């Protein structure tokens, strides 16, 4: 008489997106410094564990640690390219993980949600890559290599945000 229990966690396949994005972040950090890559790897591990057990807290913590790994790599002399793409990959991993946990909690592990998750991850990746590319291009084409330039880029991005918010 009893029916199927709903297992309130993401499907196994959902781990894949976060794991892949996390590995990208790790390899980006590895270009800068091996120690940063290790931190990033640990963060990715925690993140994936958080997805597997459907705990938002673990996913957030893992994402933060992975990002710290990228920051560490930047502090140890990584160039702009790896840092920027590593950041984007970290955010994508964390975003996909959080999304997978929310899907798992709302729908259970037996729902095939890979399509929605992929769409979500791709959209996030596109945003990250676009911003990164625009930032890098402005950074290279800027008149001087002064920090003022980067501040300007940041300002421009913030203005974009305000415009978007008031739409």
């Amino acid at each position, binding site marked *: *008489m*009893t*029916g*199927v229990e709903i297992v309130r966690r993401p499907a196994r396949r959902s781990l894949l997106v976060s794991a892949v994005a996390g590995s990208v972040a790790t390899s980006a950090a590895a270009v800068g410094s091996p120690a940063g890559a290790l931190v990033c790897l640990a963060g990715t591990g925690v993140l994936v564990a958080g997805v597997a057990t459907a705990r938002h807290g673990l996913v*957030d913590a893992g994402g*933060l640690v992975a*990002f710290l790994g990228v*920051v560490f790599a*930047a*502090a140890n002399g*990584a160039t702009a390219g*790896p*840092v*920027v793409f*590593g*950041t*984007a990959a970290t*955010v994508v991993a964390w*975003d996909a993980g*959080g*999304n997978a946990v*929310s*899907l798992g909690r*709302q*729908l*259970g592990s037996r*729902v*095939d*949600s890979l*399509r*929605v998750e*992929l*769409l*979500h991850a*791709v*959209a*996030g*990746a*596109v*945003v*990250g*890559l*676009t*911003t*990164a590319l625009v*930032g*890098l291009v402005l*950074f290279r084409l800027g008149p001087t*290599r002064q*920090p003022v330039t*980067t*501040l300007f*880029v*940041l300002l421009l*991005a913030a203005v*974009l*945000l305000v415009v*978007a*918010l008031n*739409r």
Partner: protein
Amino acid sequence: MSDDVAEADGSSAAETDGSSAAETNGSGTAVQDGAPGEASAVDGSGAAELTGGVAGVEADSDSDAETGAPSEGVAEEAASATTVREMRLTPTNHWVGIAAITFLTAGLGVMTRSRPLFLAAVVGVGYLAYANATEAPDPSLAVTRSIADPDPEPGDRVRVTVRVTNAGDAILPDLRVVEQIPDALAVVDGPARTATALRPGASVTFSYTVLARRGRFAFEGIDVIARNVSGSRERVLDLATAETTLTCLPPLDATDTVPLQGLTSPYTGRVSTDSAGEGVEFASLREYQHGDAISRIDWNRYARDGALATMEFREERMATVVVLVELRRQAYLQAGEDGPHVVDRSIDATRRLFNSLIATGDRVGIAALAAADVWLPPGAGPTHQAEARHLLATHPALSPTPPSERLYVPGYLKTLLSRLDDDAQVVFVSPVPDVTSAYVARALHVRDHPVTILSPDPTRTDTPGRTLAAAERSNRLASLRRSGIRVVDWESDERLAEALERARRRWSA
């Protein structure tokens, strides 16, 4: 902004995984069931690649679901529009904290004069904009639900297929659908829920299997969560769909003969009475009176001493029985975690008793000790039997979920007594969960409606508390027996016929 995102999407599909995008594109055009012109009409030229990719994935998932659903061809109804019963728009708090981390990174970049960190902060700002740019879409959905077998037998597995179509103009990037299954039905296979992304006009199909049980069940809604593409906002909706019903009538099976008490109607039937007359079983001898049938004269005695005597037999009469089934909230008890609860057993027993009494030629009625009015006056014949079958299966008060309203017992007894024929006896099907049930039985018994209690046993003795409850119930039954009421204690692992047979042997001994 959504246009920007779509365009950017297209470029990324080309950049990041060009080969796989081309692959899905190819299969998409092959399998896609929607009009191909539709996709290109909706999206800008820049998004053509992305749209192709999405449509490909979607068509794939569609065809998967359809091959998985055997009933697809059974009932292809027109998709019906839905009405919103309740809507809530909430932030998901998914991107909370990104702003803080972004500006911390920027600050760190300034302090360490690190340009890469600055640029990382730029990426963060980009995500901030992405998170806040869009609002959760307001989905306009059409839902078609088809049930493979709308009139199953109890215990059948019934496949239900739900098709959700995006009838609006907006793309739904993250749509989560949860079917509202009637409370009493259990899903035994397949999740009754799905998650997908739907472009306008596209649809998703999911199916699941429920275990049919007695009753009439209406599928009439879905819960929907629609998120925006970044997942920062979500709209939670309770949608009413066109009603699809599943009606499950139990079969016309009966149990063995039901032992009844001596109160009968004047009509010939099968219940042996104490009154002597025509019949089969010998009762007494009396002096011959003029007009007695020759066949009933005791010729042996005449041969012995020449006196005429007439043999008398126990008369067999028809009984009028009202099966009273207890449906108060207190009776909704269950032995253990699994299996049907005791009211289900009671209703099942009522059905069997009814059918078996009808078959033996008695007049049978049905009443329920419940706040809702359940009353089928005693009667006989196939029409009456069909009426009872329908009542037992579909009356809302007999549904497997406990009632919400309380019953005023003295008022109910008054109504019941006014309805009972003078010669009606009562078979009270009740677990006797409290003294009120015992009171009802006694009240009927002392008003010349002999009561037989058929009591399905919901108790267990695995914990001290449960043992106490079992002892209390057993005391109540014992006290009822002392008042002259017949009690059949029906164990949870026993067949009804066995319990009745056990009781009959005890009573005839």
